[in-house]
C-alpha cells in the first residue's frame, strides 16, 4: 500500500518565490527522503532526513520532519524555472538487510513560471 502521500498534488509559483511541499506517512520510519523527477527522466535523490532529526538543509532546500505528526515538508527557496519537476517523498527502509526498500508517494508537480 502507498506509504507517503504528497500534498499538494500540483503547485504553480512565480520564479523567486518559495515552494513548500508536504508529505504524510502512516507508519514509523527510519528515515525519509525526497527525490526529484524532471519530465521524461528518472528520479534523482535530493536529501535524506533521519527519524531523530527535525530539520536539514542542503543549498536552497530545507526539509523538516515531525515524527509525532508523521509528516515532512520540503521547502525550496528562491525558486527557479529549472526547479520545475515532480517531487516525491520516500519512506523506509522497509524490510531488513538486502530486502530493504523505499516506498514512494505519487508526487507533487511543481511548476515555476519565469
Amino acid at each position, binding site marked *: 500500500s*502507498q506509504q507517503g502521500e504528497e500534498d499538494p498534488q500540483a503547485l504553480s509559483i512565480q520564479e523567486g518565490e518559495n515552494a513548500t511541499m508536504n508529505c504524510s506517512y502512516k507508519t514509523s520510519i*527510519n*528515515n525519509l*527522503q525526497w*527525490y526529484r*523527477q524532471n519530465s*521524461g*527522466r*528518472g*528520479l*534523482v*535523490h535530493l536529501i*535524506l532526513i533521519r527519524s531523530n532529526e527535525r530539520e536539514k538543509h542542503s543549498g536552497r532546500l530545507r526539509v523538516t520532519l515531525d515524527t509525532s505528526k508523521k509528516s515532512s515538508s520540503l521547502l525550496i527557496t528562491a525558486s527557479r524555472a529549472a526547479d520545475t519537476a*515532480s517531487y*516525491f517523498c*520516500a519512506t*523506509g*527502509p522497509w*524490510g531488513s*538487510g*538486502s*530486502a*530493504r*526498500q*523505499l*516506498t*514512494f*508517494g*505519487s*508526487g507533487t*508537480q511543481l511548476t515555476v513560471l519565469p
Partner: protein
Amino acid sequence: DTAVSQTPKYLVTQMGNDKSIKCEQNLGHDTMYWYKQDSKKFLKIMFSYNNKELIINETVPNRFSPKSPDKAHLNLHINSLELGDSAVYFCASRHTGGSGNTIYFGEGSWLTVV
C-alpha cells in the same frame, strides 16, 4: 558517465507480444530494482535482486519475469503484453552496506501497448 542505464527508452508494441527491457549499473551496487510508474506518477516496486538473487517479488503477474545474469544487470521480460502494462518502468540500484539508503534510478523505459 551513465550510472544506471536501461534500454530501450521508448517501446511501442501490440497486445500479446513479448518484450524485454535491459538494465545495467556501473556503480558497483549489489541490489537492483524494477519499479513501475503509472499514469498518475505513482511509483510501485515490482522486484528486487541482491547479488543475483530475487529478494522482493511484489504482487506482479507472472507474465513479468526478471532475470539477473550478474549483480550489475537486471533485465525485465514481459510475456503476452496487455494494455494495462503501459507505464514507465524504472530500473534502480542501491548499495546495501552501511547506511546506504539512496536509490539511484535509470532514465526509465516508456512502454506503450496498443
